[in-house]
């Protein structure tokens, strides 16, 4: 047992910066006498904190820990490449979320300062989560990440959807946390440790010999699968994604998803997904069904956000595929490569989903707009750039080359095949063929259907000008091409 050292503090400094930064907007608000500060100021405060934290993370990684793994706070937290990369992704993504929030009607009036505070607080949890190396910190991170989001969802001004979404997420989220926690308890009870390091030392065989431990692991997995919205624990996702204000949805779909998957990556590293364990077959089914449910459910959706939510479920399935390959590849030469490609997938997905929700956010003219796919009718005429951007993003989500969505998916397929998961991959491929339909449908409405007089998207004056959101959407649509074609540089960063 060593005492907390200065190094620990320094390594954790991005977190501290985040905490301090999160206070800035509300402090400003307090100083201004509880008047909402100008949103630009708030945005800058948040962005500075986020970017600063990201820079700090990177520099800590490169300068202090010398690109190795550093265990802080008695092995509660780990700072390694994975932590660094995912933290940076999350932090930078959050900047974009903040921008979306600034221009979205659900948050542009009052409460932007509070939202910024909540977002940054949530990120504190998120970064803790990706750095967690003990189930205590995992739980802590999960909860700290989720709690502000409950509020953020519910902060919609006068919108019953956001309230419903908040309560659903809150109840189900806590419910899952409790299950997760029970799992941790059982694992702890049977093995005497909650740290990943300890579990690693314990060995994989333990899971086959100790029923209580297996039970615990199962419950933990259920909790984690719930967070990444895998079948059959995906139910909350769609409703919550739809009901939440769009920027918050984009936050959940990108940042929170990345964070949750990082936990899964670390969890998989424990070896419980290897083919020797009984979990193996189960997870195969979960993966296949997640993909099918996600893609299948999206087929019949009218609401854009709901459709994207189902798509998000499907993408979780693909990542699961990669994770399974990762679990099977232990100690083989491709292990690092798979992890890297899974991360690449997560990064790419964040970009695509942020962009897509960005467009949705642009289109929302009032709170709780609940846009339907058919509301896009005529967008190709009035906002060609935006329509094209959305098209590219959707094609990328659908896995059409040369967009990044294709490459990431293809890599994961290769790894899965390499690890012998042939039938799962085939189903995954079938699912992705199913998906094409709903990714193409918005394009049908944007370009091919003739707008009638009551279609607002066909009316150029209908939209308020949201330059930053527009910029984000277009920027991300370009990004999905460039990081697809020039993936080498991105992979270099992730490695």
């Amino acid at each position, binding site marked *: 047992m060593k005492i907390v050292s200065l190094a620990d503090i320094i390594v954790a400094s991005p977190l501290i910066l985040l905490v301090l930064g999160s206070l800035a907007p509300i402090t400003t608000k307090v100083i201004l006498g509880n008047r909402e500060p100008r949103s630009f100021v708030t945005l800058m405060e948040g962005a500075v904190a986020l970017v600063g934290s990201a820079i700090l993370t990177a520099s800590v990684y490169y300068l202090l820990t010398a690109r190795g793994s550093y265990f802080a706070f008695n092995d509660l937290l780990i700072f390694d490449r994975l932590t660094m990369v995912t933290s940076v992704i999350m932090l930078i993504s959050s900047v974009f979320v903040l921008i979306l929030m600034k221009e979205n009607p659900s948050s542009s009036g009052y409460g932007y300062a509070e939202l910024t505070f909540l977002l940054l607080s949530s990120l504190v949890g998120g970064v803790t989560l990706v750095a967690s190396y003990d189930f205590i910190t995992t739980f802590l991170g999960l909860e700290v990440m989720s709690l502000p989001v409950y509020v953020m969802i519910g902060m919609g001004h006068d919108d019953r959807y956001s309230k419903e979404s908040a309560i659903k997420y809150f109840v189900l989220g806590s419910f899952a946390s409790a299950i997760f926690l029970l799992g941790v308890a059982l694992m702890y009870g049977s093995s005497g440790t909650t740290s990943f390091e300890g579990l690693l030392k314990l060995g994989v065989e333990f899971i086959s010999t100790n029923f209580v431990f297996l039970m615990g692991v199962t419950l933990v997995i259920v909790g984690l699968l719930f967070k990444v919205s895998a079948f059959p624990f995906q139910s909350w996702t769609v409703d919550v994604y739809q009901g939440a204000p769009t920027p918050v949805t984009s936050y959940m779909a990108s940042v929170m998803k990345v964070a949750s998957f990082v936990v899964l990556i670390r969890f998989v590293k424990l070896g419980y997904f290897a083919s020797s364990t009984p979990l193996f077959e189960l997870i195969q089914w979960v993966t296949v069904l997640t993909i099918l449910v996600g893609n299948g459910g999206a087929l019949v959706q009218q609401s854009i956000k709901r459709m994207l939510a189902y798509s998000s479920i499907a993408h979780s399935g693909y990542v699961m595929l990669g994770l399974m390959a990762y679990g099977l590849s232990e100690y083989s030469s491709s292990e690092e490569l798979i992890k890297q490609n899974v991360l690449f997938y997560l990064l790419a997905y964040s970009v695509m989903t942020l962009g897509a929700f960005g467009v949705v956010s642009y289109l929302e003219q009032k709170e709780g707009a609940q846009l339907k796919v058919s509301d896009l009718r005529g967008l190709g005429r009035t906002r060609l750039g935006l329509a094209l951007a959305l098209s590219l993003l959707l094609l990328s989500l659908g896995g059409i080359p040369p967009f990044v969505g294709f490459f990431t998916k293809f890599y994961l397929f290769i790894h899965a095949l390499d690890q012998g998961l042939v039938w799962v991959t085939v189903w995954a491929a079938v699912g992705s063929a199913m998906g094409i339909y709903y990714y*193409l449908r918005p*394009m049908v409405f944007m370009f091919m259907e003739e707008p009638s007089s009551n279609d607002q998207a066909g009316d150029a004056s209908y939209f308020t000008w949201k330059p930053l959101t527009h910029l984000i959407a277009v920027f991300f649509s370009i990004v999905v091409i460039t990081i697809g074609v020039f*993936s*080498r540089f991105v992979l270099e960063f992730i490695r």
Partner: protein
Amino acid sequence: MLLSLIILFPLICALVMALLPDRRYLHKVALGMSVVEFLVGLVLYLKFDHNKTGLQFVEKILWIEDFGISYFLGVDGISIWLVLLTVFLQPIVVLASWSSINEKIKGYYVALFLLESAMIGSFITFDAVLFYLFWELSLVPMYFIIGLWGGERKIYATLKFFIYTMAGSIMMLVANGVMLLLAKETLGFYTTSLLDWYKIRIPFVGGEFFSPQTLLFFAYALAFAVKTPVFPFHTWLPDAHVQAPTAGSVILAGVMLKMGTYSFLRWVVPLFPEATQYWSWLFIVIGITGIIYGALMALVQNDIKKVIAYSSVSHMGYIIAGIFSLNELAMSGALYQMLNHGISTGALFLLVGMIYERTHTRDIVKYGGIAAQVPIYTVIFMIVTFSSIAVPLTNGFVGEFLILLGIYQNRPAWAAWAVAGVILGAGYMLWTVKRVFFGPAGQVVQDHGLHDLSQREILVMLPLVFLVFFMGIYPNYFLRLFEKGIIFLVENFHNYQLFSQITEGGL
């Protein structure tokens, strides 16, 4: 760099089209640029050494190291023809669009040039992932071309087209992954280069469906069969053709379908020689069924475009049966027929488009007796019809003759069925011609005063008509150049790795 240029130039064209400020010059600039692209293709053709087997103008840059995916371009004696076909049809299509496309012109040309780039790309790439990339990428512009400038049921048609093709090719993606891993296993390194893949010996057990080679064979074959389209995966084709604008139909029939048949030659046959040999009977049966089935379907259509669409199914049947006859006659014939079909069916769609512009109907019942009104049009249509039904001295005959002779060499009894297509082909085409052009004047003649082809339209058709005859009278100009491509393939498809050994360096 020539090959990169030939892919990149259309992209540049698309960019120029998108940025061109003055809308008045769109048509002319598009034509000019497509002609330049054609000239680039011509330069490629002239610099191509037909006496060499193997790849030429090779460009290879490692692209994604982790999996050995590379930017790998090259042309051989087979692909050069399809590249030429593509660049040749493009200016024609552009010229034909001058009057038919009146709105969203900019987007239209952007899509057209993107499409050209993707199609050429799929013909000249020798890297599996790059190929898949171009393959899928070609769907997107076509999706928009049909969906934006199409007919009444364009959305149904375009979605069907896209999803069907995509669903068909998704297994190819998985198979690509498997091949990649096999490459790693047998060659010791990750590679998606086709030339390396040729060296892989994939385990094959004759009677067993679940042997690796058979499964991979079918995974690829399915993708190409949908694209081609082979009976019974053809139902997207009539819908797509009927709804597509003229240019869309021409490109679709002229070039895109060739992506399917070409890929059979390039991928399926040499990669899976044993499976190809073993299952060739199936594909000959499917091909012949397609010939007859397509013809029977064409016989009873009342929409001119549907007649031609189903005739495409029939013609594709010839090509597939030809390829899987696995002898040099049939395969040369198949390649020849690919070019023929591009020209004659392309021409037919152009012609239908021209008359549609005048009458706004494709319903055969409403036509009749228009020959007197539009003599030049009639003459050209007849010429192309004769090409389509393979009358000697037109290009169609050469292709069909070689294919049928080749099928006979492989399976004599089945050739008789294939030959039945010759009769039925004449049946549906001439019946259509009779109903449209001959007999007493029909409704459209009474409703519209039809005017004959304009000079521009004649200019559109002339190169095609010229090729119909040139390829029919002097096919040897082409056939002897197939030698190093097709005949080498036929003779060596069991050990096609030879091909990779004799590949030439780049330019």
